[in-house]
Each structure stands twice: as C-alpha cells, then as structure tokens.
C-alpha cells in the first residue's frame, strides 16, 4: 500500500470520529436533560454540520500538512518515476540538513542559518516585548480613554500600508546615504556612513515592527483586566514601581506575555518578506532556504523536510519556554 494512499483513508476516519463524538455527547453530559447533538440540530442539519466541519478540518488543516509530511519522507523524483520502484520512504531529506548530500561534509551553511534564525527570532521577541510592555501597561492602566484611543489608532493605521512598502521605506531610512546616516554625519557623530543593513539593524527593526500588534494586544488584554487596586495596594505597602511590575503586574499578565511572545517568535522565525528585504547581504534566513527549495530548485521533499525541522524546533522551543515559566498551553490561548 502506497504511503500516499493513507492520505485518502483519513477523511473516512475523521468523519467517523466526529460522528462518534456527536453520538456520545449525551452519554458524557452529566445533566440528564441535556439534548444530544442530533436532537438539538435535527438530522439533516446535524449531518451537514459534521460534513462541513470534517471538510474544514480535512482539506484546510489536516490534508495539506499531511501531504507535506509524506512528501518530506520521499526522494526527489521526476514526475514519471513517482510511485515507481525508486519511490521509497527515506530519511535522506532530513539527513541532508545535517550532512551535505553531494560531498558528505557537515552542512554548516544550512545549520548556521537555522541557528541564526532561531537566535534572531528570540532577540526580536525580546526586543518586541521590551517595546510593547510599557506601551501596553500605559494603555491598559495609566492612560485616559482618549489617549488610549489615539495610541490604538497610531498603532493600527501604519498596518494599512503593505508590508513591501513598509520594508522598503525602512531600507531607505537605514541606507548608507539614508536619512539616519545623513543626520548622524551632519551632527558629526560619525565620519563614515554606518552600514546598518550589514549589521542587521534593518532586520531587527523590520521584524519587531512587523509583529508589534501581535505582541501588544495579548499584553494589553492581560494587563487590562488587572484590578487597579492591586497596583495601588502594592504601592501602598511600600513597593517601588519596578517591584510592582515584578511582583504584581508581570505575574498576573504572564499568560498574555507567553501568548504574545509565542506568536511573535513563531511568526518571526517563519517570516519571509522582512528578512529578504531588510537582511544584510550575507544574512541567510532559514525560510528563504525553504522557499528556494520549493521555487528555485523544485525540490519539494527537501523543502518540506526543512520546513518541518523549523516547525518542530520552534514548537519544542516554545514548549520548553512555557514549561520554564510555568505557563500551561491552555492559559496562553485564553
């Protein structure tokens, strides 16, 4: 049985699972007056719900990923050889991340890009948090309603501008003959223009800016529900401002912080546009490599394998962080 064939068995399994769930709902409910799924919705509507949800889960969520997983365990073959005797399950695509297939040496280039991507994403997340926390705190606790509305507007309106335009405008600012270098030289602070692009300043600024809202709203939501009296109580008991944040605000907002950081980290590590436009000439972002495998080399199996390596690493990293900071996964999506 071909491994790709498994993919077509799954729809039936998924529909069956939903069916069993709908059927057993009444039994699992402790409330005896609880109406079952079909009693509530009628048979026709109930069946169409199950089919629609199954379609959604399958065709938009499970199948595409599953196809990619399967793909990543196959060798790259011309179309006419697919399903032939050379089309076997293999780990060679995953292996190629560590060892270059052509000469058997360590694949320093790709592993280096991978580590760089992860570390940069962590740094971007930290930078983003440092920028967003004070702002979110101000919006949630300190600011008047009118000022908060103004800040919200100032935060959201720039996102109406498309990503490419935003990235290139940043490039213009940071270019060697750009506004910032001109200003620095004009004030006599530097003699030669600073190469911000090579220093990856553009990358950090661009990525932080791109995901500002993703960080600020979970933080704002979390801090906003904190009872003001808690802050005042801590202050009244003698705590200076930074201890109030350390002991009262941050522990309370921890789920929001975890949620914001997780999303920013995941999005930054998987971003494509900002690193391509704002990275320095020698900067190699991991998703660019994945992109090239898919669209330049037409090596889908290897691209898929690389993408899953990134996904697995990011999930593992996030889980580790959540464990370290004692936040449950459920809390972050509240």
């Amino acid at each position: 049985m071909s491994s790709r064939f498994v993919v077509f068995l799954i729809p039936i399994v998924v529909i069956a699972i939903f069916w069993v769930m709908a059927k057993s709902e009444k039994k699992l409910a402790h409330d005896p007056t609880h109406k079952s799924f079909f009693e509530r919705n009628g048979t026709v509507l109930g069946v169409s719900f199950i089919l629609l949800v199954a379609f959604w889960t399958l065709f938009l969520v499970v199948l595409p990923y599953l196809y990619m997983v399967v793909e990543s365990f196959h060798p790259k073959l011309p179309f006419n050889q697919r399903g032939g005797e050379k089309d076997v399950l293999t780990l060679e695509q995953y292996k190629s991340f560590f060892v270059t297939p052509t000469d058997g040496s360590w694949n320093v280039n790709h592993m280096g890009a991978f580590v760089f991507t992860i570390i940069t994403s962590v740094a971007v997340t930290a930078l983003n948090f440092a920028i967003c926390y004070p702002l979110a705190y101000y919006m949630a606790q300190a600011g008047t309603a009118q000022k908060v509305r103004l800040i919200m507007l100032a935060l959201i309106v720039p996102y109406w501008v498309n990503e490419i335009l935003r990235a290139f405008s940043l490039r213009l600012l940071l270019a060697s003959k750009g506004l910032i270098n001109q200003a620095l030289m004009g004030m006599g602070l530097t003699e030669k223009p600073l190469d911000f692009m090579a220093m990856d300043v553009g990358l950090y600024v661009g990525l932080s800016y791109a995901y500002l809202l993703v960080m600020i709203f979970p933080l704002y939501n979390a801090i906003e529900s904190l009872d003001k009296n808690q802050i005042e109580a801590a202050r009244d008991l003698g705590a200076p401002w930074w201890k109030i944040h350390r002991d009262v605000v941050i522990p309370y907002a921890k789920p929001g912080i975890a949620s914001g950081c997780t999303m920013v980290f995941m999005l930054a590590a998987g971003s494509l546009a900002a690193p391509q436009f704002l990275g320095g000439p020698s900067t190699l972002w991991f998703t660019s490599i994945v992109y090239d495998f898919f669209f330049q080399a037409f090596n889908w199996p290897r691209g898929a394998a690389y993408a899953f390596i990134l996904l697995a690493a990011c999930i593992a990293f996030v889980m580790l962080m959540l464990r370290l900071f004692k936040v449950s996964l459920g809390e972050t999506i509240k």
Partner: protein
Amino acid sequence: MSAGVELDHVTVRFGQFTAVEDATLDIKGGEFFSFLGPSGCGKTTILRTVSGFLDPSQGRVRIGGQDMTGIGPNKRPTALIFQNLALFPLMTVADNITYGLRVRGMPKAERMKRAGELLDLIALPDQGNKLVSELSGGQKQRVAIARALAVQPKVLLLDEPLSALDLKLRQHMRTELRAIQQQVGITFIYITHDQGEALTMSDRIAVMSDGVIQQVSDGKNVYDHPDTPFVASFVGENNPFAGKVTQADSSFAVVETAHGALRGRNPKGLKAGDKAILFVRPESFVLGEGAPDATIHAETISSAFEGNATHVFLKGATKKEITVTVGRHGGAKIPSQGERAAIHYAPEMGIVLPEGKMARE
C-alpha cells in the same frame, strides 16, 4: 507607634468638580475615627488624600505632625485596606501578609516568623500556605488587615472593608476590628456609608455631605445633637417637620408646621420668623395625647411588627409618612389602619434646626 492625622484646610478638585471642600480636622493618635456619608460625598477622596494617592488642590495633610506634601503612598506611614481588599491572588496567604516586608528587604526567615505572629493575631494560625482563593470572605478580610498591619503603619486606613460581607459576618467583624484596633493601638481611619458601623466602632465620627464635613463628634452626640438637617436625617431614622419659628428663647423654639405648632430644643439659637425644621426620632414618639404643642394627630396608614418593636406609619403632611416606633413593654394598643391616632413626644426630644439640605431617602 500611633500618629495623629491633621487635615489643614484640605480641598480636592477634579477639574470643575470639588470633591472635598476645605476640610479641617484633627484626628488624634490611637483614635478610631470614621468618615460617614452617602456615596459620592467625598469620604473616599479624603482617604486617598491621606494615603497619598491624591494630592490636595489646596491645604495640607500632616501625619504625626509631619507635612506629607510630595510624599508618595509608598513612603507614608499609612496602610490602606481596600474596599475589595485587593489581595494578591497569585500569592499565598503568608506571601500576601509579608509583601510589604519583602519589598523592604526583610530576610525570608524573619518574614515567615512575622507572618506566623500576624496569622495568630487574626486567628488564622497555620493557614499561611493556602492560596487567597481558598479562604472565605471573613478570612480574606482578616488577611487584608494582617497585610496592612505587617508594615507597622502608624495609621490604618479602611475603605468600607466590610461592605462585601453578609450581615452576620459584618456585625462580627465590627467587634473584631475594634478589638484589633485596641490591641495594636494605632490610629484607624474608617470610611463607611453604614451608620451602624460608624456608631458601634468609632471614637469619633465626621459626617460628610457633598464634599463638606457637616459635623465631627462622638456617635452619641451625632445621634442626639445633630448640627445640621443633613446629619439629623442621615444618621438614624428621623421625622422632619418643616415650618417657620413663631416663638423662641435660648432653650426652646416653637415651629408652626403643617401639623400645628410644635416645640423642640433650640440649640442653634433660632429666632421668630426663621425657616426651620423640627426633627423627632421615631422612638421618641409615644402613642396618646400629650402637651398640645408636642402632639400630632394623623391617620394611620399601616403598621409593621418587627419582634422587639412595632413601627406605625402615619399619614404626614408631605409625601413622607411619619414613623413611630413603639416598644413592646408599654403594652400600648397599636392603632389599626385608617384610624386617626394621637402621638406625642417630650419637647426636649425634638430638635429645631435651621432649614437646610436633608439626606436623600
């Protein structure tokens, strides 16, 4: 350990709105002092000004003789108990209680020892490791008190801390608060809209209305010798009879009301022709005829038996009915509905005050 609190012509404004107007007060060290008034009267504003969360627009606050201008709430020798208690939900009971000591850098071992002592004081021994959410309402109350006392404040400020409790517990906590105050001996400033709380616990009470302190005195005086119609009508039940003074001397005045000429004490020295309100408390009325200028005839609307007493409601000249409280011991016959009844009072139990704003019903 205790310190007095002086308000020196304190005025607090929020934009156009004046929340507290020219409050001058001298609260003595070790006193249990209450601010009593309806919501929005400015009592919480005073508390926040004393604790340092608000700066007076004019005037000064002095604690222990020291001017507090420019000193933040974290540097003042006061501790505040919030209306909703504001305990830290993510900390244990012991961590809550010792938070003020922790931010002062006290070592953990010493802190935990202190937590033990305070838990004993509030009668919750060995509950230090529990989370706040595992405690009952009354226990949370006591933890909030312990947390405030832990920093050894000279003045404890309490913002209606009992309002969330049910009646029985509230009455019990009154006694307990008073006992704790006497034990630790520091100044308590208590904010409440509940006159029962103010009367039972306080050494002295300031009655407030619309940002103005109406009267400062002990509970008995506030009840028996109100200074203004507001105090007379806000503290305890009272029956007002408005009218014009027809004759007056230094001790008594007669007011011509819708129920005829009625006599009462004249502490404010009103003169004939002044507009005035005579107040007679429900328990000061007695059923039956009395002196002609201290007797009212009115139709009975209803009566309510309340165990230890019966309230009789008579039709007044205005919309508000006249309430008469009849104790059980007299064995008096309660007039039935529709019956015309006579009630009287001893003239010294009536008090004539100059016309002024009354408490809203």
